[in-house]
């Protein structure tokens, strides 16, 4: 499992291999300069103390000491730039990979995955994984190279010196980190979850602030947040304890290695195998080489965190999208728009036919849609009404292929949509969904999502139909006005109408509007519906609504209850039938009747 994950991330690094190799070389040169500086300094002083025959013998070490003194800083600087740049490139790749994994899942495949958790995943896991290179993979590689360097210096002078150094180096570089990893494994693995919990509480605190303050839960919620913070710190403490112990033991091993090399060199000097002047140098070389070991315990501790994060990321990547990304076989190439990129929408009329659709949400007891059929001829207007939970929004999800039906089929111009790429299917529709999102960008940018090539005149016309002309004219910055996060600088009604304007701009043959006037005052609602119907052009309209007023203009009205069409017909027919539609209509009329004179119809005031 872990090996497979590691292979995956090495795969991520492969395109950066040039930078990685350069970084490794610079890493070795940096440590090597330190070794050279200290070892040569030690040798220089010892040799001087022994009063060489001529000072010329000291020229080489003197020049070497000066060279390494300068080179070390320069190599370190370059190494850091190269490795950090590689890390940030990796980060960008990870982010995009994560987004690409998420994209096919939204919205139906995300289920109840919580948003705060998502945020935490995106920022934390991805940022944890960026360390996979700099903190986890890079240090051991440099350490290995350094071990080779140390061995190359010491072995010719005495195998015992090299062995003592090698054993201490491996103890400090491999055994110690492994022990530390074991000690910190549990808290480290639990860290991302603890962060996720804290993040969920923080998101709730910020977004649910109205309720928290109104219910005087400020102190209680701060305490919950503090408790979650405390849990996080407890885990961090566990990790840090292991880190502190390894850090201390590492320093000890470094000193011991130096002492061991020094003491083992003593007999070699006495036996004449080693020039006395070199004894200080070899000891200091061993000491300096340990610089490469210092980041290793951190590397292994980071490995636990990285594996956990990449596991969670992979879990997301492996989730099955609710709708297969590529059309299965048949007419993928034949579809007129299938190959076209993104925002291009289909121009020209289209006929929509829905046959006996059935859909059941996972875990639900009864189907949300149960044998629904309808035909929307090119240019026709059909309304879908019914109580909440009757399956209206489910139908829209199926039409745009956020989900696929378990039975039945959807035909666009006679072609089964399951044979089309989901993006091609969406190119037929322009949608105002119940949760139409405005992006944290300017008004103009939000509108141009509907049609990137729309000119200002077109934007203005769409705003006019959406009853936003007056509002827009009053904006100091006009189309450049920032709408705020999720459009929250606008009122609910303004957001809704911007979404309508955006949908109108999209030159798709079929408009799907899910409660386009929700949250609007009655006057604006009426004007918007009138302007909308007048401005349809040749487009067909499928209107999902709970407002029955205005449905007289519809070619057909389908009344949905519990996933089935219980009545269908034109407004007048349905009113005459005295069924569910009539009851809903009376309820709606009743809502308005306080003042019979205003309505022109007999009202029963409660």
């Amino acid at each position: 499992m872990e090996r497979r994950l590691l292979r995956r991330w090495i795969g991520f690094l492969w395109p950066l291999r040039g930078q990685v190799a350069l970084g490794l070389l610079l890493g070795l040169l940096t440590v090597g300069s330190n070794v050279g500086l200290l070892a040569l300094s030690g040798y220089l002083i010892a040799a001087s103390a022994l009063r060489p025959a001529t000072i010329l013998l000291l020229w080489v070490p003197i020049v070497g000491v000066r060279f390494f003194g300068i080179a070390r800083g320069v190599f370190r600087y370059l190494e850091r730039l190269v490795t950090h740049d590689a890390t940030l490139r990796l980060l960008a790749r990870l982010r995009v990979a994560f987004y690409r994994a998420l994209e096919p899942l939204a919205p139906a495949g995300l289920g109840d995955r919580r948003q705060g958790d998502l945020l935490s995943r995106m920022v934390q896991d991805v940022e944890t994984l960026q360390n996979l290179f700099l903190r986890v993979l890079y240090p051991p590689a440099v350490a290995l190279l350094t071990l080779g360097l140390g061995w190359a210096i010491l072995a010719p002078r005495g195998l015992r010196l090299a062995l003592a150094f090698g054993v201490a180096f491996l103890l400090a570089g491999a055994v110690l980190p492994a022990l530390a990893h074991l000690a910190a494994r549990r808290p480290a693995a639990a860290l991302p979850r603890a962060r996720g919990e804290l993040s969920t509480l923080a998101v709730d605190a910020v977004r649910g602030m109205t309720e928290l303050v109104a219910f005087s839960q400020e102190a209680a919620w701060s305490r919950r947040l503090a408790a979650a913070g405390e849990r996080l710190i407890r885990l961090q403490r566990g990790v840090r304890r292991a880190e502190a112990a390894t850090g201390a033991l590492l320093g000890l091993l470094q000193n011991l290695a130096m002492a061991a090399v020094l003491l083992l060199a003593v007999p070699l000097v006495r036996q004449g195998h080693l020039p006395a002047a070199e004894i200080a140098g070899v000891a200091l070389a061993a000491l300096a080489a340990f610089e490469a070991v210092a980041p290793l315990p951190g590397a292994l501790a980071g490995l636990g965190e990285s594996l956990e994060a990449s596991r969670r990321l992979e879990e997301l990547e492996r989730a099955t999208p609710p709708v297969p990304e590529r059309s299965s076989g048949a007419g993928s190439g034949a579809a007129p728009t299938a190959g076209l990129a993104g925002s291009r929408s289909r121009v020209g009329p289209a006929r929509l036919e829905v046959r006996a659709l059935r859909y059941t949400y996972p875990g639900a007891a009864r189907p949300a849609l149960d044998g629904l059929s309808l035909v929307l001829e090119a240019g026709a207007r059909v309304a879908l009404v019914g109580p909440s939970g009757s399956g209206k929004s489910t139908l829209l999800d199926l039409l745009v292929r956020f989900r696929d039906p378990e039975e039945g089929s959807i035909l666009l111009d006679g072609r089964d949509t399951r044979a089309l790429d989901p993006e091609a299917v969406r190119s037929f529709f322009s949608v105002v969904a119940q949760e139409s999102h405005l992006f944290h960008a300017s008004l103009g940018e939000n509108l141009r999502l509907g049609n990137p090539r729309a000119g200002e005149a077109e934007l203005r016309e769409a705003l006019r139909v959406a009853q936003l002309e007056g509002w827009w004219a009053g904006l100091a910055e006009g189309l450049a006005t920032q709408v705020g996060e999720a459009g929250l600088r606008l009122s609910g009604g303004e957001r809704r109408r911007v979404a309508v304007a955006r949908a109108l701009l999209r030159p798709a043959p079929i408009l799907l509007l899910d409660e386009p006037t929700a949250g609007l005052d009655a006057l604006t609602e009426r004007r918007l519906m009138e302007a909308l119907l007048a401005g349809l052009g040749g487009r067909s309209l499928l209107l999902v609504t709970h407002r029955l007023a205005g449905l007289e203009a519809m070619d057909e009205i389908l009344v949905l209850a519990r996933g089935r069409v219980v009545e269908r017909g034109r407004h007048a027919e349905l009113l005459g039938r005295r069924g569910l539609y009539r009851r809903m209509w009376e309820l709606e009329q009743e809502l308005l009747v306080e003042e019979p004179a205003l309505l022109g119809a007999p009202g029963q005031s409660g």
Partner: protein
Amino acid sequence: MGVDRRLIARVRPVRHLLGMVVVLGLLAGLLAVAQASLLAGVVDRVLLRGAGLPALERPAAALLAVMLARALLAWGSELAAFELAARVRQELRERLARHLLALGPARAAGERSGELVNTLLEGVEQLETYLGRYLPQLALAALVPLVLVAFVFPRDWLSGVIFLVTLPLLPFFMWLIGGQASLAARRRWAELARLSAHFLDVVQGLPTLKLFGLGKREAEVVARASDRFRGATMATLRVAFLSALALELLASLSTAVVAVALALRLLGGGLSFREAFFVLLLAPEIYQPLRTLGSQFHASTTGAAASRRIFELLEQPAPWPEEEVAVAGERRDPAAPAPRGPAERGLRSEGVRFEAVAFTYPGAERPAVAGLSFAVEPGERVALVGPTGAGKSTVLALWMGFLRPEAGGVRVGGRRLEEVGVAAWRAQVALVPQQPYLFAGSVAENLRLARPGAGEAELWEALRAAGAEEFVRALPFGLETRLGEEGAGLSGGERQRLAIARAWLRGAPWLVMDEPTAHLDPESEAAVQEALARLLAGRGALVVAHRLATIRQLDRILVLDRGRLVEEGSHEALVARGGLYARLARAYVGPAAGAAARGEG
């Protein structure tokens, strides 16, 4: 490079830990001197006196002891440093959360929620390195080198002078380049916060992006944003690493210079090997504390930027003194949400009075509400009506104490809201917001927010009253069903009814509602209206209403226009008057008549 004074104030309660870290560090420095001295002695004997291993047993044992002691000290100081940072972080996180809540929904709405969340999480976490490593290291970097140099002078004054001259150059370089780096770090922090806000935005908007065929393409936008971030960060790092380069260069070059100088004087015979080697061994130790400090400089500027953002938030004035809100909220017995002290009796008998209230949002051109006066008697139900932007939400926020009037005042129970205490007042009000927020947790937990001690029977009673019993029973785990952050799985009407149940549980004499029937279909609307009627019975209420069905349940209508009260009275009276309200009310009938004409035509 200076440490934020506000942050220092937060460290004060844990200064003993800081002291401990510094003392342990100093002791470790002294042990480094001992180790160098012992090592120099050993090498000296081997090199110049031809000593063998047996003669070195005692210094070797001493060396071992010193090395062990150093390891112990390093371990202890790490742990103390972690505790230091942990306690400050924990204290700051709680304080920040409390303060954000004290700023309240109306004020915090001005900030991007993603950024606030990021500050609360990442911002506080960034202080870990800053407090736990950088701060103690700052003290050690100032002390340890001087102590060590003091041991060098008696042995070789020339090396001592070299150290003394080069040492101050290190902080000088850090300061010189650090200014640049900290500026860039602030940019990087802003970029990171923006990036995370951008991500949340993209994730939330993914369905919309897909509907517009932009889902795939957005990956490029994410890539571009990450790339911009890389550009900004690398620019920071190129400068930030320069200071590290200067430090490394100075430290290793000085070591080289000292080594060569020692060698030349050894040749001249003015120095013993033992002294020279001792000084050489100490050289790296002398520069080490400053180099460590330099390596933490980058992290420290990030931490400083984060702490600036945290204190910026903490220093925003809350509408009410925090103690007042928190203390009154705490004092309340959770099981009895509507206590009946003398003040509360006043609230029941005298009602709520707005007296020439004015409020302007920061940065707004005209006041949201101006010269607004009205009174609501106990038990009276008042509708607040008006076109979009008339100031209805502001009135609700003022009523709830989310905002504080800049002129005029709100009186409750005959006393100024300031005297009553905003938490005591809020305990008298149940709120049903326009878009009720459902928290991560079960249905029961969401309900108990309104009354923490409520038993299960009370919860069901409230659900029944809110017309929510049926659908909650149908949920897979009933009361224990977990709700998503956005209340996933519930329809708008169901969420609204949960909010009504919450208000019911509150058992408060006042009710405040914002467009309670928006976004509902007629059937849900009927259910909500019924629930509302039950909730309204026996309570005073202020209801922002867009629908006649709601207005009809209320006693009196206040009509707002551009922040002012323009009409007031009963539905009949206002319709007869033919003013703004009449125009609004007539609009309800419009679509039926208008569309009917066209449909038939």
